[in-house]
């Protein structure tokens, strides 16, 4: 076989190469492929997990946002209601107190008027008596004699009724 001789093919060299390849295979498998594929796989899993987690977090965030908005709206609504109620209450109280004050004033004026009326009547009575007395005294001066108590009374009454 000329060709084998030309190319320098020797079985022992083939065998040497086989040994080389086997050694290389074992060493690379141990030091390169195994650790590297392991890490690549781990990283792939981790990335997949992270992406899944990120999705979940985003979803949760969104729901949290919605919840917050809802609560905020509720709170605003409630606050508005409270303010409205308070305003209502305040105006009620003001109106009530105004009414009460008005009633009080009325009562007080009524009482004052009544008092004044009584006072005036008392005054009238006193004045009438005074006037009766003065009339009697005048008459006594005019007729120059003292009147009996009966006459006096009669005259005073007449004068008073006349005054009335």
């Amino acid at each position, binding site marked *: 076989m000329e060709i084998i001789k030309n190319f*320098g093919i020797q079985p*022992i*060299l*083939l065998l*040497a190469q086989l040994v*080389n390849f086997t050694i*290389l295979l074992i060493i690379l498998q141990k030091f390169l492929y195994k650790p590297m594929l392991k890490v690549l796989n781990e*990283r792939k899993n981790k990335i997949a997990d992270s992406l899944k987690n990120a999705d979940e977090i985003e979803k949760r965030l969104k729901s949290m946002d919605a919840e917050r908005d809802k609560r905020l709206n509720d709170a605003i609504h409630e606050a508005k209601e409270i303010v409205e109620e308070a305003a209502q209450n305040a105006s009620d109280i003001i109106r009530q107190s105004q009414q009460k004050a008005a009633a009080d004033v009325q009562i007080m004026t009524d009482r004052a008027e009544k008092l004044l009326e009584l006072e005036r009547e008392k005054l009238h009575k006193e004045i009438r008596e005074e006037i009766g007395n003065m009339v009697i005294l005048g008459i006594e001066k005019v007729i120059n004699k003292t009147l009996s108590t009966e006459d006096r009374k009669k005259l005073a009454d007449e004068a008073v009724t006349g005054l009335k």
Partner: protein
Amino acid sequence: MQNTIVLAPEIIFHIGPLPITNTLFTSWIVMIVLIILSKLSTKNMSLIPNGLLRNIFELTIEGFYDLTESLAHSRAAMFFPFLMTFFLYIVIGNWLGLFPGFSTIGFFNDVGGHMDFIPLLRSMNTDLNMTLALALISAFLTHFFSIRYLGIKGYLAHWFNLNPLFMFVGILEIISEVTKVISLSFRLFGNIFAGEVVMSTISTLAAFFVPLPFYFLEILAGVIQAAVFMILTMVFMVLLTEKHIGEEESR
């Protein structure tokens, strides 16, 4: 310096019965380089990528693993170490052959009156011994996996069939198995050897700048040939370990 085209590798010395050729010597250097690189790249493994060397290896390994998985599916984990070792061994061998010193550093041997130049280092795949051995390993592994996954009966059924038509196909298949080995080994050998010859020829014509484009070409050819060898082996493995449709029907 004269450039003679020598197909056979030069023997630099003997260890017992084993002739140490310059290509075998180079292949040891390639192994050492690969082992050092693999140790360096996996020195501190962590989930976070760190280091250029590690990234290069990760990129290569992940890319080829995905390729293997897309073709071989569940058998990928079994095939991958062999395929990847073919690739790395061949590509580093090819690239190392481009370094200065290869085919140029050597000694003269007195053979019957005239001096023969014997380079100490010679690109690994410019020796048919190396590529033929790799092709034989590839073929052996392919058949080994075939028996493993199909069983001895399924394996034999692939080649021998009582149906005359399939019997003829079987014979063709056996011939093609032989040609596979020849084509794998000679493709790799031919490409790298031719590249080497082209570069040495160009270098003698013009030593400065002119060989540069050829160096780039050889860098490319080196990785392409390694990838071709690996992918062809992968395809052969996948084809021979696949269950045949006719076979499944007959069961």
